[in-house]
């Protein structure tokens, strides 16, 4: 047997798809050809390492939420949408009212500010510009008192695991103020033991309330 024939039949060998005679012929070739032996070892090692990859744990509560969203159409509206790139169109369709469209340059200083009107959801957009693709970065969000992320009523701290692509990544936060807010929204992005924090001052305009 020649090396090129061995290479052609390597997959069958890896999958145990050879009859006894074919296997014997390949094994004889392996015994006398160090190059094909290396090729075989490499192929086995790559496969084993791919098999060893384990997915990160599901977010707690995902199974309950996913089943609930599937069976209750009303629950679908609360589907969280923090998605770089793909989620953009979906998120826009979830936002009630007109998107405010605040694009923040991602510099830590000065602190950017956004004005919300009580009980009027508005989308704040943050653009993250990443120098390289990042797998499984963690985004944490700490919301000021009286400010909610639409669909996460009553939750002040939220976190997601997500991938960032190289270049611009758009995060859309549909926010709604329930009262006067005096603190900042803090978003932290972490990956591989490093983290970066962004602060956003939220001013609440409650003048519209008097007419309600």
């Amino acid at each position, binding site marked *: 047997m020649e090396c090129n024939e061995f290479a052609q039949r390597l997959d069958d060998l890896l999958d145990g798809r050879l009859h006894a005679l074919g296997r014997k012929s390949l094994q004889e070739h392996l015994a006398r050809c160090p190059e094909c032996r290396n090729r075989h070892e490499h192929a086995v090692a790559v496969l084993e390492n791919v098999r060893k990859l384990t*997915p990160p744990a599901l977010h707690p509560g995902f199974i309950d939420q996913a089943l609930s969203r*599937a069976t209750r159409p009303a629950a679908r509206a609360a589907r969280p949408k923090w998605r770089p790139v793909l989620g*953009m169109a979906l998120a826009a369709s979830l936002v009630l009212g007109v998107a405010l469209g605040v694009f923040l340059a991602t510099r830590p200083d000065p602190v950017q500010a956004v004005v919300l009107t009580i009980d009027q959801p508005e989308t704040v957009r943050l*653009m993250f510009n990443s120098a390289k693709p990042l797998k499984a970065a963690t985004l944490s969000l700490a919301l000021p008192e009286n400010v909610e992320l639409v669909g996460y009523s009553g939750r002040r701290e939220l976190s997601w695991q997500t991938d960032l692509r190289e270049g611009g990544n758009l995060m859309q936060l549909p926010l709604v103020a329930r009262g006067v807010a005096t603190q900042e929204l803090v978003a932290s992005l972490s990956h591989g033991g490093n983290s970066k924090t962004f602060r956003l001052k939220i001013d609440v305009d409650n003048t519209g309330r008097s007419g309600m």
Partner: protein
Amino acid sequence: MSPYRRARPAESNFEDLLRPQVEYLYRLAWRFTGSVADAEDLVQDVLIKLFPRTQELLEIERLRPWLARVLYNQYVDSVRQRARSPIVELVTGAEGEENPLDALPTAKDGPEANAERTGQRERILRALDRLNPEQRAVVAMHDVEGYSLEELETMLETPLGTLKSRLHRARQRLRALLPMEPFSVGERVKD
């Protein structure tokens, strides 16, 4: 199937059938996409699509391979949709903006940080990312989940020859992207 099950609300039947499968679907979805967010979205989309078909689900004997097929189709569709989406163009680039991740390690960092970033897991994930969706799926379903090519031929309604060729190319590409060296010393699997 028990008549009692049929008489129950669709929500109960659906949850009974699918709850034990969600984790499996997520695992497979993650192997397809390499991303937790994408995997969760994929599973969610599949569940939403399947709920109206609860009665049909009740008739299926081997649910898991059937679900794997639905997931695969949804995955391939979503990749195609994404490829067509103008959203990518809208958000790529962003020239002139300061990089918010400049505190993250770069190639100029020390050897320890470098080693962590280029860990084996990341290298393998990057290599898998370079496969096309069909190749990635056949690796996930055959090499990892253990479906035979004959099973996949039926499940994916794809000819055996096509699957063999996809698998061959996928493995060849992975070997090219993952040279021998990273798998040396203790990582190599003994025959």
